[in-house]
């Protein structure tokens, strides 16, 4: 196990012990597994974001993409499109939106944080223009994915989907040429260009992957909540980036482990569950997540010996 993964693992253990002390109900396996369902959508975005940040880029639009997909899918199904077709269109739409980001970043050579800041507003704006303040119901038969279990009746389906995807993309990141190229570009994109890596194509596919994950997560959120609204998952990008960075992925790119991201996501879930059990308000939980992000990066900055006046520039 890499050193970067020990940090989230240690914190996870601490959070589990603290959770157990906060409430006697915390240490209930079924309860813990059930509460993962609330965080699986975040987890799917974390898988995509791990690749994006490993590349030295950032995708701020992931949560807006998710919201637009969930609105569009719900609208399509409401119009009577066959569920399978509607869901495929939804996931395809998510991928397309990711590709739009990727094209602007890779081929128009624009900084990803600005492109995705623009599409953060744009995608959610489209969802809002599409839906207004109304909410659209998801077909009854497709609702409640969080109440479906694998045979055995303990492991909820969303968690299983997340584990399978995280494992698959973890292998892709660590063991395939594609993953190695992503890391290489993140470490030094000019050197990668000279090493005959098709940088633009990899950047494009990583943003497409981030969009694909947002698409799957969007459909999943529809099923879990039973309704789609344009303002669902607002601000989720903060949590996604926090989990990714906490998992040991370097914010400057070139270093990433999916195991770390996975553990960090479980950590965030455990923190939310124990804060929820301790009746801490959502807004205050938001502050805590923000503080965790800032502290992780600040500590990272101190330890990596940030250059004097270390203005390492933005994630570009």
């Amino acid at each position, binding site marked *: 196990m890499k050193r970067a993964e020990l940090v989230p693992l240690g914190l996870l253990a601490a959070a589990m012990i603290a959770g157990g002390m906060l409430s006697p109900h915390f240490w209930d396996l079924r309860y813990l597994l059930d509460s993962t369902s609330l965080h699986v959508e975040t987890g799917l975005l974390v898988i995509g974001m791990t690749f994006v940040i490993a590349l030295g880029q950032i995708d701020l639009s992931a949560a807006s993409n998710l919201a637009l997909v969930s609105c569009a899918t719900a609208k399509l199904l409401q119009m009577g499109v066959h569920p399978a077709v509607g869901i495929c269109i939804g996931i395809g739409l998510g991928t397309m939106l990711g590709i739009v980001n990727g094209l602007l970043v890779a081929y128009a050579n*624009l900084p990803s944080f*600005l492109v995705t800041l623009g599409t953060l507003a*744009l995608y959610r704006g489209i969802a809002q223009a599409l839906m207004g303040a109304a909410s659209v119901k998801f077909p009854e038969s497709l609702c409640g994915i969080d109440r479906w279990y694998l045979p055995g009746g303990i492991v909820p389906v969303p968690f299983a989907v997340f584990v399978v995807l995280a494992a698959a993309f973890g292998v892709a990141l660590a063991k395939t040429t594609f993953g190695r190229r992503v890391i290489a570009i993140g470490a030094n994109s000019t050197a990668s260009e000279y090493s005959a890596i098709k940088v633009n194509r990899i950047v494009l596919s990583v943003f497409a992957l981030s969009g694909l994950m947002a698409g799957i997560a969007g459909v999943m959120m529809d099923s879990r909540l039973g309704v789609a609204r344009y303002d669902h998952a607002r601000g989720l990008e903060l949590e996604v980036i926090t989990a990714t960075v906490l998992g040991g992925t370097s914010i400057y790119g070139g270093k990433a482990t999916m195991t770390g991201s996975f553990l960090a996501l479980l950590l965030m879930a455990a923190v939310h569950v124990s804060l929820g059990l301790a009746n801490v308000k959502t807004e205050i939980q938001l502050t805590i997540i923000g503080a965790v992000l800032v502290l992780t990066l600040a500590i990272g900055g101190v330890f990596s010996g940030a250059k004097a006046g270390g203005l390492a520039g933005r994630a570009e």
Partner: protein
Amino acid sequence: MGVKLSFVVGPAAVRSGVWRPEVRSAVLILLVLAAGWLKDPRLLSPSSLNTVLLAVPLLLVVALGQMLVIVSRGIDVSVGSMVGLAGICLGLMFRSFPNLPMSLAAGAALGMGVVFGLINGLLVARLAVPPVVATLGTMSIFRGLTFIISRGQQIDSNDIPNALTAWSLQGPFKIGQLSVPWLLIIALAFFALVFVLAHRTVWGLRLFAIGSNSEAARLRAVPVFATVIGAYAICGALAGFAGLMYASKFGFVNPATAGLGLELMSIAAVVVGGCDIRGGAGTVIGAFLGCVFLSTVFVGLSVLHIEADWQQLVYGAVIIAALWLDALAAKWPRFRSASR
């Protein structure tokens, strides 16, 4: 860096050209006004123009700070939360001390803002955290603190002193049926101040130099840390003051909504105003015109009864369109903005 020097001396030295960012923004403003007027002449009625005059100041003050940060090759997405936090703190101060002099309130607003801004600046300039991630974190911290300090309660209009609301209701003079509110005068004073800071001081010169190439600037003995942290501190101070202006304009401060979305509006305004998103180039006048443009668009949209639901889409589209133009400009030098 030398390329930029001719520009930094002052806007008068900017190479002339049709694609100068200021000209582009001015043309955009006129186009929007003309299109809106054709659709509905009420757009140019005194009442809607007065709305524009009241909409510009808040955005302008925030955008001025945002512009300085963007010139330094950074970005500050926490401005909206800083406006909210400062607004709530000021509101609570007014509740406890109803007779608080305005000068003290203004000082407190600027002071609080400086502290918030210094936190961002330290993270970015000393700890080398990428600006967008650092300020994304502080954005949620500041917003959460707003909830914690206010206990989720709104500051009501009877807690806001009349002397403060007068800033937006009264003004020194009128032009025909247009009333110029004090708020606008104050914002223009900040505009002049930031103009001088950016285009007429050594600090401004250094900021532009760092924005174009921070490594080269460092090698030339430019104090990178002090200069950049200054930009974030000023941005924070202006956002803090905008919290006071928010209370004046709306007459109440809600912890959930105060300042929400100002980060996107200010970035859009600065980018539309021709500021180079990669840092190192831009003009304060451009940022001003960008603010006027966005405010005109939104007042226009509401006059034309286009619902508020479309606002977010417009911010996003404006940012992406401006970025795209920028990318095109990089490909065809003929269209390149002169300030590069």
